């Protein structure tokens, strides 16, 4: 029994070495994963930017309407429809609708379409998160700001919003991490993203193990790095709490 263990582990490592060679090194196949990662990060970064801008606008409209039902009735209705539709359909279906129905022709290329689709999708969820953040800020803050003579807009921008963001930073971080992984369906419209890269290697080599696990590992590393960055940001924002 003791003699077979080194033999077994040796053959495992040699099988692993063969697989690594065939799936990653032969014909520079690791490049499918590298360029896929580049595309995934590109889509994620710009979709996040669009999502934040869109989400903030929608959240502000919704809170303004909530505070004073007479104001912003039409914008609020538009935002409600936007939130319901986007949160009520799967992101893959939205992506395909955006790609095959809305953006007809090649005016915007496939990566641009994906950025738009994921950005709009993310915006809906970010809007709700920011809105809950704004509502969680004590009403006393708004009252204090107004009674000091600041306008509604200045109070919101300088007093309420920063506190809201600090409160919901974990939830927004969560949303960004989800977005990174949601982009894995971009392969459905022909984008060579990270998941598709592993997929291509899998269909060339017929080996599921290394391509799938390598793809998963790359996502994992990116998410861990993102989480570390986010907790650093949270810690800095919390410094002022203990003054």
């Amino acid at each position: 029994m003791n003699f077979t263990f080194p033999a077994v582990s040796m053959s495992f490592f040699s099988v692993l070495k063969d697989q690594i060679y065939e799936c990653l090194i032969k014909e520079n196949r690791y490049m499918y994963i590298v360029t896929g990662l580049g595309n995934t990060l590109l889509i994620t970064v710009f979709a996040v930017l669009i999502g934040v801008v869109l989400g903030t606008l929608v959240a502000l409209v919704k809170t303004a309407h909530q505070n004073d039902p007479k104001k912003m009735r039409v914008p609020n209705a538009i935002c409600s429809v936007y939130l319901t539709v986007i949160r009520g359909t799967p992101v893959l279906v939205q992506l395909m609708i955006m790609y095959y129905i809305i953006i007809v022709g090649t005016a915007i290329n496939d990566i641009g379409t994906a950025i738009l689709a994921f950005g709009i999708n993310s915006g809906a969820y970010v809007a709700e998160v920011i809105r809950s953040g704004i509502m969680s800020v004590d009403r006393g803050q708004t009252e204090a700001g107004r009674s000091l003579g600041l306008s509604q807009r200045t109070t919101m921008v300088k007093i309420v919003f920063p506190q809201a963001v600090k409160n919901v930073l974990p939830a927004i971080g969560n949303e960004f991490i989800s977005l990174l992984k949601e982009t894995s369906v971009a392969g459905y419209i022909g984008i060579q993203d990270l998941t598709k890269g592993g997929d291509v290697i899998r269909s060339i080599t017929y080996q599921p193990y290394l391509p799938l696990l390598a793809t998963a590992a790359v996502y994992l590393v990116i998410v861990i790095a993102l989480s570390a960055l986010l907790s650093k940001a949270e810690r800095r924002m919390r410094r002022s709490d203990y003054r």
Partner: protein
Amino acid sequence: MKKVKMFLAATLAVSMLVPMAACASFDTSSGTASGTTGTAAASTAGGNVTMSTNAEFEPFEYKANGKIVGIDVDIANKVAAKLGKTLQVRDVAFDSLPAELTAGKCDFVAAGMTITDDRKKNMDFSDSYFDAAQAIIVAKGSTIKGKADLKGKKIGVQQGTTGDDYCTKNYKDTPPKRYNKGADAISDLISKRIDAVVIDDYSAQKFVAKNANQVQKLSDALTVEHYAIAVKKGNTQLVSTINGVLKDMKSNGELDKIINKYKSALESD
């Protein structure tokens, strides 16, 4: 006021970045030389013609060394040369190809696509350039020996292909399991989740060659089919250009040379 202006400026700047990103994207989805950054090109602009395909169908289109190559790609390059444009290749799922044409994402589709009446309703076909058949792949040592044995068995097909149509029509009680790509069907055949795979004959040879000790191809041919290049419905100009190219290639032996080039690559693997 200054802060508001700065905020607005920042938002506008961010939204300006989106089209820039769209242009300067890592472009492995189009272009025959993937693996390098490049600029995405619209097929209507100056010197590009776009072809959509499903690059998982040896020897007609497949990925090797980071590029998409194959019989269809070679033919497409000839068409592009005739038009005086550069070829851009898009790799999508096979069943998305009709949508690619209708939505104008490509100029033509060359994907080992068989002419069928249903497909003719949604796209126009060129002359055929290859005669094919649907073949059956089974695991080595399987009890399935021919067409008749398929009844009641679990069959795998690639979604949207004529193999899919054939099995759905003929085995209504046991509809086939549909996969996004042939390779997935073969993997399931090897892991015994399905009993047989029905897929195009020429590519079946390649699938079997890559997994020779686990699967085998039966000699029965289920259908007789003809591959052609598809264009958007009504694009008669492009169809006649493609037909012209195909006719030249057939008469000067170039088409046979290309097919045999990949055939020997098939057999030497």
